Protein backbone atom coordinates (compact mmCIF):
# COMPACT_ATOMS: atom_id res chain seq x y z
CA UNK A 1 0.00 0.00 0.00
CA UNK A 2 2.89 2.40 0.75
CA UNK A 3 4.12 2.18 -2.85
CA UNK A 4 0.59 2.89 -4.08
CA UNK A 5 0.24 5.92 -1.80
CA UNK A 6 3.55 7.29 -3.07
CA UNK A 7 2.57 6.63 -6.69
CA UNK A 8 -0.64 8.65 -6.26
CA UNK A 9 1.10 11.36 -4.23
CA UNK A 10 3.92 11.86 -6.73
CA UNK A 11 1.45 12.18 -9.62
CA UNK A 12 -0.61 14.70 -7.65
CA UNK A 13 2.49 16.65 -6.72
CA UNK A 14 3.55 16.75 -10.36
CA UNK A 15 0.11 17.99 -11.37
CA UNK A 16 0.10 20.68 -8.69
CA UNK A 17 3.38 21.97 -10.02
CA UNK A 18 2.42 21.61 -13.69
CA UNK A 19 3.16 24.83 -15.49
CA UNK A 20 0.21 26.91 -16.69
CA UNK A 21 -2.29 24.41 -15.39
CA UNK A 22 -6.07 24.48 -15.46
CA UNK A 23 -6.22 25.44 -11.80
CA UNK A 24 -5.17 28.92 -12.81
CA UNK A 25 -1.98 28.33 -10.86
CA UNK A 26 1.42 28.31 -12.36
CA UNK A 27 5.04 28.38 -11.43
CA UNK A 28 4.75 32.16 -11.69
CA UNK A 29 2.19 32.32 -8.88
CA UNK A 30 4.49 30.12 -6.77
CA UNK A 31 7.35 32.52 -7.42
CA UNK A 32 5.16 35.49 -6.43
CA UNK A 33 4.24 33.71 -3.20
CA UNK A 34 7.90 33.02 -2.43
CA UNK A 35 8.89 36.62 -3.21
CA UNK A 36 6.17 38.11 -0.98
CA UNK A 37 6.62 35.83 2.02
CA UNK A 38 10.32 35.11 1.56
CA UNK A 39 11.62 38.58 0.62
CA UNK A 40 9.13 41.46 0.92
CA UNK A 41 7.59 40.72 4.34
CA UNK A 42 10.92 39.71 5.99
CA UNK A 43 12.52 42.94 4.72
CA UNK A 44 9.63 44.96 6.19
CA UNK A 45 10.03 43.25 9.56
CA UNK A 46 13.81 43.28 9.77
CA UNK A 47 15.88 40.96 11.96
CA UNK A 48 12.90 40.32 14.24
CA UNK A 49 11.43 38.23 11.45
CA UNK A 50 13.86 35.47 12.34
CA UNK A 51 13.70 35.80 16.13
CA UNK A 52 10.10 36.72 16.98
CA UNK A 53 7.71 34.03 18.32
CA UNK A 54 5.05 35.67 16.10
CA UNK A 55 7.04 34.37 13.13
CA UNK A 56 6.59 30.81 14.44
CA UNK A 57 2.83 31.37 14.35
CA UNK A 58 3.07 32.64 10.78
CA UNK A 59 5.01 29.52 9.72
CA UNK A 60 2.43 27.42 11.54
CA UNK A 61 -0.63 28.98 9.89
CA UNK A 62 0.62 29.82 6.41
CA UNK A 63 0.51 26.20 5.16
CA UNK A 64 -3.25 26.34 5.67
CA UNK A 65 -3.43 28.99 2.96
CA UNK A 66 -1.01 27.23 0.59
CA UNK A 67 -2.77 23.88 0.90
CA UNK A 68 -6.32 25.21 0.70
CA UNK A 69 -5.43 26.71 -2.68
CA UNK A 70 -4.71 23.34 -4.24
CA UNK A 71 -6.63 20.80 -2.19
CA UNK A 72 -10.07 21.65 -3.60
CA UNK A 73 -8.91 20.21 -6.90
CA UNK A 74 -7.98 16.77 -5.58
CA UNK A 75 -11.27 14.91 -6.05
CA UNK A 76 -13.57 17.59 -7.46
CA UNK A 77 -10.99 18.30 -10.17
CA UNK A 78 -10.56 14.64 -11.07
CA UNK A 79 -14.32 14.28 -11.28
CA UNK A 80 -14.65 17.43 -13.37
CA UNK A 81 -11.91 16.36 -15.79
CA UNK A 82 -13.32 12.80 -15.97
CA UNK A 83 -10.12 11.16 -14.74
CA UNK A 84 -11.53 9.80 -11.50
CA UNK A 85 -13.43 6.85 -12.95
CA UNK A 86 -10.36 5.56 -14.81
CA UNK A 87 -8.40 5.79 -11.57
CA UNK A 88 -11.13 3.94 -9.67
CA UNK A 89 -11.01 1.19 -12.31
CA UNK A 90 -7.39 0.40 -11.43
CA UNK A 91 -6.06 -1.96 -8.78
CA UNK A 92 -5.55 0.89 -6.30
CA UNK A 93 -7.39 0.52 -3.01
CA UNK A 94 -9.67 3.30 -1.79
CA UNK A 95 -7.23 4.07 1.03
CA UNK A 96 -4.24 4.33 -1.31
CA UNK A 97 -6.01 6.92 -3.45
CA UNK A 98 -7.25 8.88 -0.43
CA UNK A 99 -3.95 8.87 1.46
CA UNK A 100 -1.95 9.53 -1.70
CA UNK A 101 -3.92 12.70 -2.31
CA UNK A 102 -3.69 13.74 1.33
CA UNK A 103 0.05 13.17 1.31
CA UNK A 104 0.51 15.26 -1.84
CA UNK A 105 -1.39 18.21 -0.33
CA UNK A 106 0.47 17.89 2.95
CA UNK A 107 3.84 17.64 1.21
CA UNK A 108 3.03 20.69 -0.89
CA UNK A 109 2.19 22.83 2.17
CA UNK A 110 5.20 21.58 4.12
CA UNK A 111 7.70 21.97 1.26
CA UNK A 112 6.50 25.43 0.30
CA UNK A 113 6.66 26.60 3.92
CA UNK A 114 10.25 25.41 4.27
CA UNK A 115 11.32 26.88 0.96
CA UNK A 116 9.89 30.25 2.06
CA UNK A 117 11.53 29.91 5.49
CA UNK A 118 14.91 29.31 3.87
CA UNK A 119 14.44 32.20 1.41
CA UNK A 120 13.48 34.47 4.36
CA UNK A 121 16.61 33.45 6.22
CA UNK A 122 18.80 34.18 3.20
CA UNK A 123 17.01 37.55 2.69
CA UNK A 124 17.54 38.63 6.31
CA UNK A 125 21.18 37.51 6.36
CA UNK A 126 21.92 39.31 3.09
CA UNK A 127 20.07 42.47 4.17
CA UNK A 128 21.68 42.57 7.62
CA UNK A 129 25.11 41.12 6.88
CA UNK A 130 27.83 42.16 9.24
CA UNK A 131 25.83 41.28 12.34
CA UNK A 132 26.85 37.63 12.29
CA UNK A 133 24.80 34.78 10.91
CA UNK A 134 21.14 35.00 11.97
CA UNK A 135 19.27 31.73 12.41
CA UNK A 136 15.86 30.71 13.73
CA UNK A 137 15.96 29.90 17.47
CA UNK A 138 15.40 26.20 18.16
CA UNK A 139 11.82 26.60 19.59
CA UNK A 140 10.76 28.53 16.47
CA UNK A 141 12.40 25.94 14.23
CA UNK A 142 10.71 23.04 16.04
CA UNK A 143 7.37 24.87 16.20
CA UNK A 144 7.50 25.61 12.47
CA UNK A 145 8.45 22.01 11.70
CA UNK A 146 5.66 20.46 13.76
CA UNK A 147 2.94 22.98 12.98
CA UNK A 148 3.67 23.19 9.27
CA UNK A 149 3.02 19.45 9.11
CA UNK A 150 -0.06 19.54 11.34
CA UNK A 151 -1.65 22.59 9.77
CA UNK A 152 -0.94 21.30 6.26
CA UNK A 153 -2.56 18.05 7.36
CA UNK A 154 -5.56 19.92 8.79
CA UNK A 155 -6.04 21.94 5.62
CA UNK A 156 -5.57 18.81 3.49
CA UNK A 157 -8.10 16.74 5.44
CA UNK A 158 -10.71 19.54 5.44
CA UNK A 159 -10.02 20.07 1.74
CA UNK A 160 -10.38 16.39 0.92
CA UNK A 161 -13.75 16.28 2.67
CA UNK A 162 -14.91 19.39 0.83
CA UNK A 163 -13.52 18.12 -2.47
CA UNK A 164 -15.29 14.77 -2.04
CA UNK A 165 -18.65 16.45 -1.55
CA UNK A 166 -18.32 19.29 -4.05
CA UNK A 167 -19.75 18.97 -7.54
CA UNK A 168 -17.04 21.06 -9.15
CA UNK A 169 -13.66 22.63 -8.41
CA UNK A 170 -15.26 26.06 -8.24
CA UNK A 171 -17.77 24.86 -5.69
CA UNK A 172 -15.01 23.21 -3.66
CA UNK A 173 -12.96 26.42 -3.71
CA UNK A 174 -15.97 28.45 -2.59
CA UNK A 175 -16.62 26.02 0.26
CA UNK A 176 -12.95 26.20 1.28
CA UNK A 177 -13.09 30.00 1.28
CA UNK A 178 -16.13 29.95 3.55
CA UNK A 179 -14.35 27.45 5.80
CA UNK A 180 -11.32 29.73 6.03
CA UNK A 181 -13.52 32.67 6.99
CA UNK A 182 -15.07 30.55 9.74
CA UNK A 183 -11.57 29.87 11.09
CA UNK A 184 -11.08 33.58 11.66
CA UNK A 185 -14.43 34.04 13.39
CA UNK A 186 -12.98 33.29 16.88
CA UNK A 187 -10.37 36.04 16.37
CA UNK A 188 -13.08 38.48 15.32
CA UNK A 189 -15.15 37.57 18.37
CA UNK A 190 -12.30 38.50 20.76
CA UNK A 191 -13.48 42.13 20.76
CA UNK A 192 -16.82 41.01 22.23
CA UNK A 193 -15.26 39.14 25.16
CA UNK A 194 -15.46 41.16 28.42
CA UNK A 195 -12.17 42.89 29.24
CA UNK A 196 -11.92 41.29 32.69
CA UNK A 197 -12.26 37.83 31.18
CA UNK A 198 -9.59 38.64 28.60
CA UNK A 199 -7.20 39.80 31.33
CA UNK A 200 -7.85 36.63 33.32
CA UNK A 201 -7.22 34.51 30.23
CA UNK A 202 -4.07 36.48 29.42
CA UNK A 203 -2.72 36.01 32.95
CA UNK A 204 -3.53 32.31 32.83
CA UNK A 205 -1.65 31.99 29.54
CA UNK A 206 1.33 33.95 30.87
CA UNK A 207 1.54 31.70 33.91
CA UNK A 208 1.23 28.52 31.83
CA UNK A 209 4.11 26.50 30.52
CA UNK A 210 4.35 27.32 26.75
CA UNK A 211 5.55 23.78 26.09
CA UNK A 212 2.40 22.41 27.72
CA UNK A 213 0.22 24.74 25.65
CA UNK A 214 2.02 23.66 22.48
CA UNK A 215 1.57 19.99 23.38
CA UNK A 216 -2.13 20.62 24.05
CA UNK A 217 -2.55 22.27 20.64
CA UNK A 218 -0.65 19.41 18.96
CA UNK A 219 -2.86 16.79 20.62
CA UNK A 220 -6.00 18.73 19.68
CA UNK A 221 -4.90 18.99 16.03
CA UNK A 222 -3.93 15.30 15.85
CA UNK A 223 -7.33 14.24 17.25
CA UNK A 224 -9.21 16.63 14.97
CA UNK A 225 -7.33 15.46 11.88
CA UNK A 226 -7.85 11.80 12.82
CA UNK A 227 -11.60 12.41 13.01
CA UNK A 228 -11.64 14.24 9.68
CA UNK A 229 -9.64 11.49 7.98
CA UNK A 230 -11.92 8.82 9.45
CA UNK A 231 -14.94 10.67 7.99
CA UNK A 232 -13.16 10.98 4.62
CA UNK A 233 -12.47 7.22 4.65
CA UNK A 234 -16.15 6.52 5.21
CA UNK A 235 -17.17 8.89 2.42
CA UNK A 236 -14.59 7.59 -0.05
CA UNK A 237 -16.35 4.61 -1.56
CA UNK A 238 -15.98 3.66 -5.19
CA UNK A 239 -19.66 2.91 -5.80
CA UNK A 240 -20.71 6.29 -4.37
CA UNK A 241 -18.07 8.23 -6.30
CA UNK A 242 -18.97 6.52 -9.57
CA UNK A 243 -22.59 7.60 -9.27
CA UNK A 244 -21.89 11.18 -8.12
Amino acid at each position, binding site marked *: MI*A*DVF*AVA*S*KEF*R*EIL*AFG*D*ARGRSKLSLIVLIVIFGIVIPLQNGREWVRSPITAMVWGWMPFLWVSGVVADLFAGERE*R*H*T*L*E*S*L*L*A*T*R*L*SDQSILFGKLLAALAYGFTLTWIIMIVSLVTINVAYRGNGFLFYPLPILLGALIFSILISGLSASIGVLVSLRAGSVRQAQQMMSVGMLLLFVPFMLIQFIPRTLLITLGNALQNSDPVQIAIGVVVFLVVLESILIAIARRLFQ*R*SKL*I*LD
Partner: protein
Amino acid sequence: MNAIQTNQLTRSFGDLKAVDRLTLEVPRGTVFGFLGPNGSGKTTTIRLLLGLLDADQGEAQVLGFNTKTQADEVRTRCGALLEHHGLYERLSAAENLDYYGRIWHLSKAEREGRIRELLDPLDLYKRREEPIGRWSRGMKQKLAVARTLMHRPELIFLDEPTAGLDPVASAALRDDLMTLVSKEGVTIFLTTHNLAEAEKLCNQVAVINRGQLLANGSPAELRRRTSAPRLYVTGQGITPQVIEDLQRNTLVKRVQQQNGRLLVDLNDLTRSHEIVTQLVKVNVLIDEVYKEKVDLEDVFLQLVEEERGG
Protein backbone atom coordinates in the same frame (compact mmCIF):
# COMPACT_ATOMS: atom_id res chain seq x y z
CA MET B 1 -12.75 -21.06 -18.49
CA ASN B 2 -14.56 -18.01 -19.84
CA ALA B 3 -13.06 -14.56 -19.41
CA ILE B 4 -16.47 -13.24 -18.36
CA GLN B 5 -19.50 -15.10 -17.14
CA THR B 6 -22.61 -13.39 -15.79
CA ASN B 7 -25.70 -15.00 -14.39
CA GLN B 8 -28.97 -13.05 -14.14
CA LEU B 9 -26.99 -9.87 -13.43
CA THR B 10 -29.37 -7.06 -12.49
CA ARG B 11 -28.85 -3.46 -11.47
CA SER B 12 -31.51 -0.78 -11.05
CA PHE B 13 -31.37 2.95 -10.43
CA GLY B 14 -34.69 3.77 -8.81
CA ASP B 15 -37.38 2.43 -11.09
CA LEU B 16 -35.04 2.10 -14.05
CA LYS B 17 -33.55 -1.35 -14.65
CA ALA B 18 -30.21 -0.44 -16.23
CA VAL B 19 -29.16 -4.09 -16.50
CA ASP B 20 -31.89 -6.70 -16.42
CA ARG B 21 -31.12 -10.39 -15.77
CA LEU B 22 -28.07 -10.36 -18.02
CA THR B 23 -26.61 -13.81 -18.63
CA LEU B 24 -23.53 -13.73 -20.79
CA GLU B 25 -20.40 -15.76 -21.57
CA VAL B 26 -17.29 -14.24 -23.11
CA PRO B 27 -14.69 -16.83 -24.10
CA ARG B 28 -11.02 -16.02 -23.51
CA GLY B 29 -9.08 -14.63 -26.44
CA THR B 30 -12.09 -13.16 -28.19
CA VAL B 31 -12.90 -9.63 -29.23
CA PHE B 32 -16.40 -9.38 -27.83
CA GLY B 33 -18.66 -6.62 -29.06
CA PHE B 34 -21.37 -5.42 -26.71
CA LEU B 35 -23.80 -3.50 -28.85
CA GLY B 36 -26.69 -1.32 -27.88
CA PRO B 37 -28.19 2.12 -28.38
CA ASN B 38 -27.40 4.98 -25.99
CA GLY B 39 -28.70 4.29 -22.48
CA SER B 40 -29.11 0.58 -23.13
CA GLY B 41 -26.98 -0.49 -20.16
CA LYS B 42 -23.57 -1.01 -21.74
CA THR B 43 -21.62 1.29 -19.43
CA THR B 44 -23.43 0.02 -16.33
CA THR B 45 -22.51 -3.53 -17.37
CA ILE B 46 -18.83 -2.57 -17.57
CA ARG B 47 -19.02 -0.90 -14.17
CA LEU B 48 -20.61 -4.03 -12.72
CA LEU B 49 -17.97 -6.26 -14.30
CA LEU B 50 -15.17 -4.12 -12.87
CA GLY B 51 -16.75 -4.19 -9.43
CA LEU B 52 -17.25 -0.43 -9.46
CA LEU B 53 -20.96 -0.96 -8.83
CA ASP B 54 -22.66 -3.76 -6.93
CA ALA B 55 -25.37 -5.80 -8.58
CA ASP B 56 -28.83 -5.87 -7.01
CA GLN B 57 -29.28 -9.48 -8.07
CA GLY B 58 -27.30 -12.15 -9.88
CA GLU B 59 -23.55 -12.44 -10.08
CA ALA B 60 -20.61 -12.11 -12.41
CA GLN B 61 -17.25 -13.83 -12.66
CA VAL B 62 -14.41 -12.05 -14.44
CA LEU B 63 -11.29 -14.15 -15.09
CA GLY B 64 -12.63 -16.56 -12.48
CA PHE B 65 -13.09 -13.91 -9.77
CA ASN B 66 -16.38 -12.82 -8.29
CA THR B 67 -16.92 -9.15 -9.10
CA LYS B 68 -18.57 -8.45 -5.77
CA THR B 69 -16.30 -10.26 -3.34
CA GLN B 70 -13.04 -10.19 -5.34
CA ALA B 71 -13.31 -6.87 -7.17
CA ASP B 72 -9.68 -5.98 -6.35
CA GLU B 73 -8.48 -9.18 -8.05
CA VAL B 74 -10.61 -8.36 -11.08
CA ARG B 75 -9.26 -4.81 -11.38
CA THR B 76 -5.69 -6.02 -10.90
CA ARG B 77 -5.98 -8.26 -13.98
CA CYS B 78 -8.01 -5.96 -16.23
CA GLY B 79 -7.48 -2.72 -18.08
CA ALA B 80 -10.21 -0.24 -18.85
CA LEU B 81 -10.79 2.60 -21.25
CA LEU B 82 -14.08 3.99 -20.01
CA GLU B 83 -16.53 6.50 -21.40
CA HIS B 84 -13.95 9.30 -21.00
CA HIS B 85 -10.29 8.65 -21.77
CA GLY B 86 -9.31 9.69 -18.24
CA LEU B 87 -5.86 10.98 -19.20
CA TYR B 88 -4.15 13.74 -17.23
CA GLU B 89 -3.91 16.57 -19.73
CA ARG B 90 -1.34 18.57 -17.80
CA LEU B 91 1.05 15.63 -17.87
CA SER B 92 2.99 14.28 -20.82
CA ALA B 93 2.14 11.03 -22.59
CA ALA B 94 5.10 9.32 -20.90
CA GLU B 95 4.06 10.60 -17.48
CA ASN B 96 0.51 9.33 -17.99
CA LEU B 97 1.74 5.85 -18.89
CA ASP B 98 4.42 5.92 -16.21
CA TYR B 99 1.80 6.67 -13.55
CA TYR B 100 -0.30 3.69 -14.55
CA GLY B 101 2.85 1.56 -14.69
CA ARG B 102 3.63 2.59 -11.11
CA ILE B 103 0.08 1.78 -10.05
CA TRP B 104 0.69 -1.77 -11.28
CA HIS B 105 4.13 -1.92 -9.62
CA LEU B 106 6.19 -2.16 -12.79
CA SER B 107 9.86 -1.37 -12.23
CA LYS B 108 11.33 1.80 -13.76
CA ALA B 109 13.08 -0.20 -16.47
CA GLU B 110 9.90 -2.15 -17.23
CA ARG B 111 7.90 1.06 -17.44
CA GLU B 112 10.38 2.69 -19.82
CA GLY B 113 10.48 -0.40 -22.02
CA ARG B 114 6.73 -0.74 -22.04
CA ILE B 115 6.20 2.94 -22.95
CA ARG B 116 8.41 2.47 -25.99
CA GLU B 117 6.78 -0.87 -26.88
CA LEU B 118 3.29 0.62 -26.80
CA LEU B 119 3.88 4.08 -28.24
CA ASP B 120 6.20 3.06 -31.10
CA PRO B 121 3.54 1.26 -33.16
CA LEU B 122 1.15 4.16 -32.55
CA ASP B 123 3.70 6.73 -33.84
CA LEU B 124 3.52 8.55 -30.52
CA TYR B 125 6.89 7.64 -29.01
CA LYS B 126 8.69 10.69 -30.39
CA ARG B 127 6.03 12.93 -28.84
CA ARG B 128 6.01 11.18 -25.47
CA GLU B 129 7.40 14.16 -23.54
CA GLU B 130 4.72 16.60 -24.76
CA PRO B 131 1.87 17.53 -22.41
CA ILE B 132 -1.13 15.90 -24.05
CA GLY B 133 -3.54 18.81 -23.47
CA ARG B 134 -3.11 20.06 -27.04
CA TRP B 135 -3.21 16.65 -28.70
CA SER B 136 -6.08 15.71 -31.01
CA ARG B 137 -8.85 13.53 -29.66
CA GLY B 138 -7.68 10.66 -31.86
CA MET B 139 -4.15 10.80 -30.43
CA LYS B 140 -5.51 10.89 -26.90
CA GLN B 141 -7.70 7.87 -27.57
CA LYS B 142 -4.69 5.98 -28.94
CA LEU B 143 -2.74 6.90 -25.83
CA ALA B 144 -5.63 5.80 -23.64
CA VAL B 145 -5.71 2.42 -25.38
CA ALA B 146 -1.96 2.10 -24.77
CA ARG B 147 -2.55 2.94 -21.11
CA THR B 148 -5.06 0.11 -20.72
CA LEU B 149 -2.41 -2.31 -21.98
CA MET B 150 0.46 -0.90 -19.88
CA HIS B 151 0.40 -3.66 -17.26
CA ARG B 152 -0.24 -6.52 -19.72
CA PRO B 153 -3.81 -7.21 -18.60
CA GLU B 154 -5.56 -10.46 -19.48
CA LEU B 155 -8.77 -8.64 -20.32
CA ILE B 156 -9.51 -5.08 -21.39
CA PHE B 157 -12.78 -3.17 -21.39
CA LEU B 158 -13.16 -0.53 -24.08
CA ASP B 159 -16.24 1.64 -23.73
CA GLU B 160 -16.95 3.17 -27.13
CA PRO B 161 -13.29 3.84 -27.97
CA THR B 162 -13.98 5.57 -31.27
CA ALA B 163 -16.90 7.73 -30.09
CA GLY B 164 -16.48 11.32 -31.22
CA LEU B 165 -13.67 10.55 -33.66
CA ASP B 166 -13.86 11.38 -37.34
CA PRO B 167 -13.94 8.40 -39.76
CA VAL B 168 -10.22 8.66 -40.55
CA ALA B 169 -9.23 8.77 -36.88
CA SER B 170 -11.65 5.93 -36.10
CA ALA B 171 -10.16 3.74 -38.81
CA ALA B 172 -6.63 4.55 -37.62
CA LEU B 173 -7.54 3.73 -34.03
CA ARG B 174 -9.19 0.47 -35.10
CA ASP B 175 -6.08 -0.55 -37.02
CA ASP B 176 -3.82 0.37 -34.10
CA LEU B 177 -6.11 -1.44 -31.71
CA MET B 178 -5.93 -4.61 -33.76
CA THR B 179 -2.14 -4.33 -34.07
CA LEU B 180 -1.74 -3.96 -30.32
CA VAL B 181 -4.28 -6.63 -29.48
CA SER B 182 -2.83 -9.26 -31.78
CA LYS B 183 0.60 -8.49 -30.31
CA GLU B 184 -0.60 -8.60 -26.71
CA GLY B 185 -3.09 -11.46 -27.05
CA VAL B 186 -5.71 -10.06 -24.68
CA THR B 187 -9.45 -10.62 -24.47
CA ILE B 188 -11.41 -7.51 -25.37
CA PHE B 189 -14.85 -6.50 -24.18
CA LEU B 190 -15.82 -3.66 -26.49
CA THR B 191 -18.99 -1.61 -26.27
CA THR B 192 -20.05 0.37 -29.28
CA HIS B 193 -22.98 1.54 -31.27
CA ASN B 194 -20.82 1.70 -34.36
CA LEU B 195 -21.89 -1.52 -36.00
CA ALA B 196 -19.42 -1.35 -38.86
CA GLU B 197 -16.72 -1.21 -36.22
CA ALA B 198 -18.14 -4.23 -34.41
CA GLU B 199 -18.35 -6.10 -37.71
CA LYS B 200 -14.68 -5.42 -38.41
CA LEU B 201 -13.28 -6.04 -34.95
CA CYS B 202 -15.41 -8.59 -33.16
CA ASN B 203 -15.64 -12.32 -33.45
CA GLN B 204 -18.46 -12.49 -30.89
CA VAL B 205 -21.22 -9.94 -30.34
CA ALA B 206 -24.17 -9.43 -28.03
CA VAL B 207 -26.99 -6.96 -28.46
CA ILE B 208 -28.50 -5.25 -25.42
CA ASN B 209 -31.40 -2.84 -25.17
CA ARG B 210 -33.11 -1.43 -22.07
CA GLY B 211 -30.80 -3.64 -19.99
CA GLN B 212 -31.92 -6.87 -21.62
CA LEU B 213 -29.86 -9.17 -23.78
CA LEU B 214 -31.53 -9.50 -27.18
CA ALA B 215 -29.06 -11.72 -29.00
CA ASN B 216 -25.64 -13.24 -28.61
CA GLY B 217 -23.28 -15.02 -31.03
CA SER B 218 -20.85 -14.45 -33.86
CA PRO B 219 -21.83 -11.68 -36.33
CA ALA B 220 -22.49 -14.41 -38.93
CA GLU B 221 -24.73 -16.34 -36.54
CA LEU B 222 -26.68 -13.22 -35.72
CA ARG B 223 -27.17 -12.41 -39.35
CA ARG B 224 -28.43 -15.92 -40.02
CA ARG B 225 -30.67 -15.90 -36.98
CA THR B 226 -32.36 -12.60 -37.53
CA SER B 227 -32.57 -11.98 -41.23
CA ALA B 228 -32.55 -13.70 -44.56
CA PRO B 229 -29.86 -13.24 -47.18
CA ARG B 230 -30.86 -10.50 -49.57
CA LEU B 231 -30.94 -10.08 -53.34
CA TYR B 232 -30.95 -6.59 -54.91
CA VAL B 233 -32.52 -6.20 -58.36
CA THR B 234 -32.57 -3.03 -60.45
CA GLY B 235 -34.50 -2.92 -63.71
CA GLN B 236 -37.57 -1.86 -65.61
CA GLY B 237 -40.99 -3.42 -65.59
CA ILE B 238 -41.14 -4.22 -61.89
CA THR B 239 -44.89 -3.92 -61.45
CA PRO B 240 -47.00 -4.61 -58.37
CA GLN B 241 -48.06 -7.84 -60.07
CA VAL B 242 -44.39 -8.91 -60.38
CA ILE B 243 -43.89 -8.24 -56.68
CA GLU B 244 -47.03 -10.17 -55.80
CA ASP B 245 -45.84 -13.15 -57.85
CA LEU B 246 -42.47 -13.06 -56.09
CA GLN B 247 -44.17 -13.05 -52.67
CA ARG B 248 -45.85 -16.33 -53.60
CA ASN B 249 -42.52 -18.04 -54.27
CA THR B 250 -41.66 -20.31 -51.29
CA LEU B 251 -38.03 -19.35 -51.66
CA VAL B 252 -38.86 -15.72 -50.87
CA LYS B 253 -39.30 -14.47 -47.33
CA ARG B 254 -40.05 -10.85 -48.04
CA VAL B 255 -40.02 -8.41 -50.96
CA GLN B 256 -39.63 -4.63 -50.64
CA GLN B 257 -39.24 -1.92 -53.22
CA GLN B 258 -36.90 0.94 -52.33
CA ASN B 259 -35.97 3.79 -54.71
CA GLY B 260 -36.92 1.72 -57.74
CA ARG B 261 -34.81 -1.18 -56.47
CA LEU B 262 -36.22 -4.54 -55.51
CA LEU B 263 -35.01 -6.02 -52.20
CA VAL B 264 -35.76 -9.74 -52.04
CA ASP B 265 -35.04 -11.58 -48.77
CA LEU B 266 -34.45 -15.27 -49.53
CA ASN B 267 -34.46 -18.46 -47.52
CA ASP B 268 -31.49 -19.73 -49.48
CA LEU B 269 -29.14 -17.38 -51.26
CA THR B 270 -27.62 -20.21 -53.31
CA ARG B 271 -30.89 -20.46 -55.26
CA SER B 272 -31.02 -16.77 -56.18
CA HIS B 273 -30.80 -17.67 -59.91
CA GLU B 274 -34.39 -18.99 -59.64
CA ILE B 275 -35.57 -15.50 -58.80
CA VAL B 276 -33.71 -13.99 -61.73
CA THR B 277 -35.25 -16.60 -64.03
CA GLN B 278 -38.72 -15.81 -62.69
CA LEU B 279 -38.25 -12.08 -63.30
CA VAL B 280 -36.95 -12.61 -66.84
CA LYS B 281 -39.94 -14.83 -67.61
CA VAL B 282 -42.34 -11.97 -66.73
CA ASN B 283 -40.40 -9.59 -69.00
CA VAL B 284 -38.60 -7.56 -66.37
CA LEU B 285 -35.62 -5.81 -68.02
CA ILE B 286 -32.88 -6.39 -65.49
CA ASP B 287 -30.08 -3.82 -65.30
CA GLU B 288 -28.28 -5.12 -62.27
CA VAL B 289 -28.51 -7.99 -59.79
CA TYR B 290 -26.34 -8.47 -56.78
CA LYS B 291 -26.61 -10.47 -53.64
CA GLU B 292 -25.51 -9.29 -50.29
CA LYS B 293 -25.90 -10.69 -46.85
CA VAL B 294 -27.55 -8.29 -44.41
CA ASP B 295 -25.03 -6.42 -42.32
CA LEU B 296 -24.86 -6.20 -38.56
CA GLU B 297 -26.60 -2.85 -38.63
CA ASP B 298 -29.70 -4.44 -40.16
CA VAL B 299 -29.57 -7.19 -37.54
CA PHE B 300 -29.19 -4.67 -34.74
CA LEU B 301 -32.02 -2.45 -35.94
CA GLN B 302 -34.29 -5.45 -36.42
CA LEU B 303 -33.56 -6.76 -32.91
CA VAL B 304 -34.12 -3.38 -31.28
CA GLU B 305 -37.30 -2.84 -33.32
CA GLU B 306 -38.63 -6.28 -32.36
CA GLU B 307 -37.87 -5.63 -28.70
CA ARG B 308 -39.65 -2.26 -28.82
CA GLY B 309 -42.63 -3.93 -30.45
CA GLY B 310 -42.69 -6.24 -27.46
